[in-house]
């Protein structure tokens, strides 16, 4: 999967026209809900926003443009369930309060009417007990959505992390 940032980009066609406004609002709401559920630590609800076979993975920019070594790659609900179990207590790391700011969402119609791609910028802050709020991570979400029974879900989310020097604690949901 070696690629460079541009290939993860969206075709430079006039993006917004390609997806109707109702789809745009529904998918924006889905992206916002994924961020909120992560910040509210409702991990099991967060998992439901993904399709059965969905893929959720993360990679640092350095490795995206080198040989594609990922931080992790969860494929399917079982793998997501494992990450959720780790977040809910198999990690013995005290959970901190995160905040996901997502903006600059650009949509692109997928191959079928029930498939849409989007890229967006995220900036995540983290506040540990009794510490200041700090800038935790920044980067891009490269998402693919699929609509099943009128309900949009994440089919694929790749988190591209800008930093190649991660903070001391990076187990929070990205």
């Amino acid at each position: 999967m070696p690629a460079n940032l541009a290939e993860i980009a969206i075709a430079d066609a006039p993006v917004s026209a390609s997806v109707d406004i109702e789809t745009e609002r529904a998918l924006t709401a889905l992206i916002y809900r994924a961020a909120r559920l992560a910040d509210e630590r409702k991990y099991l609800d967060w998992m439901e926003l993904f399709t059965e076979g969905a893929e959720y993975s993360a990679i640092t920019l350095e490795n995206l443009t080198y040989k594609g070594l990922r931080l992790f790659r969860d494929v399917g609900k079982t793998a997501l369930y494992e990450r959720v179990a780790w977040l809910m207590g198999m990690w013995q790391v005290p959970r901190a309060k995160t905040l996901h700011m997502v903006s600059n969402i650009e949509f692109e119609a997928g191959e079928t009417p029930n498939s849409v791609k989007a890229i967006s910028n995220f900036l995540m802050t983290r506040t540990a007990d009794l510490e200041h709020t700090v800038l935790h991570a920044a980067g891009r979400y490269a998402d693919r959505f699929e609509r099943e029974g009128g309900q949009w879900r994440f089919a694929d989310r790749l988190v591209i992390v800008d930093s190649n020097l991660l903070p001391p604690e990076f187990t929070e949901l990205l």
Partner: protein
Amino acid sequence: MSDVLTPKAGLNDVWGDNDLGLDGSRVIDRRIYVDPAILAAEQEKIFARTWQWVAHESELPELGDYITASVAGRSIVVSRSDEGKIAAFLNVCTHRGAILAPHPRGNAPDGFVCFYHGWCFDTHGKFTAAPLAAAYGENLTKASYDAPPVRHDIYAGNVFVSLDPNVPPLAEFLGAAGPSIEKYTGRHVALGRVRWLLKGNWKLWHENFRDNYHPMYTHAAIGANYQGVKIQGRNEDLTGGHSLMAFPFQGNPDSRKILMRNITGKTVEGPVSAHRPPAPNPDVRHNIMAIFPNLDFQFQNSGDGGGFIQTVRPTGVDTAIVELVAFGEANETPEVRAQRLNTTLDGQTAAGKISGDDNEAARRCNVGFGAMREVRWSNMDRGQDDGRFGGKNDEYSLRSFYDAYKDYMGDSLAVGA
């Protein structure tokens, strides 16, 4: 490798006089984690005097490829020089001090032109020309303006450097660890690096790879897996400050699924593979080999050929940078390679399902050391048999680090210092 070597005699050990009533070789003075003067001594007496891993040859395939590394505060260029051999020199211009190679990785087949005033250096760091040199008259001949070469050597494709030109040869330094390094990285390629900040003294991270006693407590999944299991494994001082911890896949494969159900209150059907630990298999041993002072190898002897190494380097008395380099076999199939690229780091790095807890352990010790005056000594007394090896949960591996540490640090460790 004779197994009968009595650990350093207690009495004349710099930590002989400790509060735990133990032999000086079985305790740690917690001052070494918090005292800036100790860190300064470690930089000069350890980091600048030992072989330091900086690159794998597979990261420098083309002529002119270079990587810059930072050892004891010095920036070093490691490059595939014009004869195709590896060269290493201090990344500093002899004119007025600018670094010659400004990127962590790059390609400079024709050597380096310092961007500040244009002085030229070849791929070995040799000074070749200063533009408009007439203004120096003959004075450029009065001294060498070469960027000082850095002693380097290669072992099984791994490039090591030493700031001390008199350091013993690499193979001798690696000693008993050599053959494993050959086996685990000899036919391999580096697949990428991930770095993160450690919130604690650098030794806390390297100690973690000398400690096979912590996993079933620090990592809930491993704890569940070892429930009611007679734990197999070997813990060994390889001498020279190196150590090896090896243990087979063991434990109760369903334990993790049960633990996950207890924690989440949900049971997830579907392929169990994702959340089952590997089935017990005495032939496959997981190896954690620690090379003095700050290098760790993790591989399986199952011929799987994948694995990773980690280095830790201090950026302050209570901060360090850990860098992990993942490996795969040079000739593995694309399927194996893709699987490796996707899963090698799953348990590792600051985001890892295992290492996430190890970073937390370093953080907790760093805070605990605030009470260093009241609780001065740490205990590394596990394993009472003479000799240099014991069971999975013994601490011959950890004591081997501190035996070597005391040799290098000498009088800097005197408690009154």
